[in-house]
């Protein structure tokens, strides 16, 4: 390890919060002590992390408040140091961090809200796609319907919760009175890009489960095998719901 590498490693550890003793002899001290100068970079590290998370999770920040969010950001940074010069994906593990901290508490739903906010950001990064017209299935020979592979829209993200997550999200948008009944039941949301915007639509549980089963490129026969009985019973309706939500871009029929 050369001296530049050693110096950068010492800086990185100290700026993340390790004891500064290893670095202080390397720093110029004058009217402002070196230990004080180190504090600026420690503060920057915390701020950069908090801002990156707040950009992706503004509703979570509103729900927990600024002080708690800062504390959560510090905890997250300790567990998940950034691995890229691009902060775009820095916060992708944040929903799991919230689950670990709040599942079973009065803030049980926070991880689900974070997943919805992450889905919105992810949809913004994907291409827009056409919407499948299910009438096109009429051209498929009946004995080949089971081989059909439905392709979800690239920007489609499905988020479900036993809480009314879309209602919670909407209640925490600017100029909206934040009032929502947490006991009003589960909500399932289809998130996708439409033009320059992201659209969020409520879908039913069956469409949500079907959408998840379609995601891996499985044929309709394979999807059927994976579905619970109650969804199989309403499969055509679930497929139509998913299509109307813009969740399907096209289908393909592999050659025999």
């Amino acid at each position: 390890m050369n001296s530049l590498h050693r110096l950068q490693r010492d800086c990185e550890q100290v700026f993340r919060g390790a004891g500064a003793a290893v670095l202080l002899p390397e720093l110029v001290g004058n009217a402002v002590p070196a230990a004080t100068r180190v504090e600026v970079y420690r503060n920057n590290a915390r701020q950069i992390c908090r801002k990156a998370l707040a950009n992706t999770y503004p509703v979570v920040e509103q729900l927990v408040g600024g002080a708690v969010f800062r504390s959560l950001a510090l905890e997250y940074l300790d567990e998940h140091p950034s691995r890229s010069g691009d902060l775009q994906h820095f916060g992708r593990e944040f929903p799991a961090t919230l689950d670990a901290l709040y599942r079973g508490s009065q803030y049980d739903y926070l991880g689900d809200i974070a997943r919805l906010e992450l889905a919105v950001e992810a949809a913004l990064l994907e291409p827009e796609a056409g919407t499948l017209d299910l009438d096109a299935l009429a051209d498929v020979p009946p004995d080949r319907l089971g081989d059909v592979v439905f392709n979800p829209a690239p920007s489609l993200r499905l988020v479900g919760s036993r809480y009314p997550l879309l209602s919670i999200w909407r209640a925490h948008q600017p100029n909206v009175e934040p009032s929502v009944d947490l006991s009003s039941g589960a909500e399932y949301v289809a998130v996708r890009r439409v033009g320059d915007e992201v659209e969020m639509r409520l879908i039913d549980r069956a469409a949500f489960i079907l959408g998840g089963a379609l995601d891996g490129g499985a044929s309709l026969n394979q999807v059927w095998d994976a579905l619970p009985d109650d969804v199989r019973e309403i499969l055509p309706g679930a497929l139509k719901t998913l299509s109307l939500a813009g969740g399907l871009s096209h289908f393909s029929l592999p050659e025999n």
Partner: protein
Amino acid sequence: MTQGVSGDAGPIPAIAGVGLRGPHQALFLHDKPAAGWLEAHSENYFADDGIAVATLERIRADYPVSLHGVGLSLGSVDPLDTEHLGKLARLVKRIEPGLVSEHLSWGSVDGRHLNDLLPLPYTEEALAHVALRIEDVQNRLGRQILVENVSSYLEFNCSTMTEWDFLVEAVSRSGARILLDVNNIYVNSKNHGFDPGDYIEAVPTALVGEIHLAGHTVQNFDEHEILVDTHNALVCEEVWNLYDAAIARFGRTPTLIEWDSELPPVETLLTEAERAEQTMVNCNELAA
């Protein structure tokens, strides 16, 4: 007055421009306020299929655009992030910016990123390392880049040269040019105790391709005042005075008003740009 939408979205003109930030994008896209040129943070447009880059492409049709990176970590001892560089190369090819710039700093070590613009020690070892990296980046992008001096809050005992000698030598060895941030010079002069005029005078005129102006804040740490480059305020009078000196030395130079947090209305940025433009006009008149 700041020149209006040029209709020629090519090279960056030697006039004042403003930073393009998310909340202002729709305004530049639809209302097309008069700005000489726009500068975008490269990393915000890395998703090839995303909405952001498609929007930038449309804005690029009406304004000259420069791309300014914050995450390449030129001075890091880690290997250059080829994935990051690949995304930048694709973006450069797609947007065809008038200028591409990065920072003379480091931000990662052993694969862990602080996502900050951290200062290098001003040593021959660091100089040789960063000059080679800049050259490598230019080779991979197939074009010259500008390298920006960063604000700093500490200095290393092992430094053997001044910050400005390090900057000039780094770009001279690599064939790059300088994006001279006048606010950063001022911030560093206060934080480290040097004459900012010495910095300006030491930079060869031919090397400066762009100037940045921004606001900073005075913050208290352990009862000590430190100037922090926060990009959340108007350019202060002392920095405007230093900009006068810079324009007197370098002549008309593309000048950007940077503002990144607590973003004001676009009109505030444009008013700052007008002042920069007036400085360049006054300088021309004096020289005539």
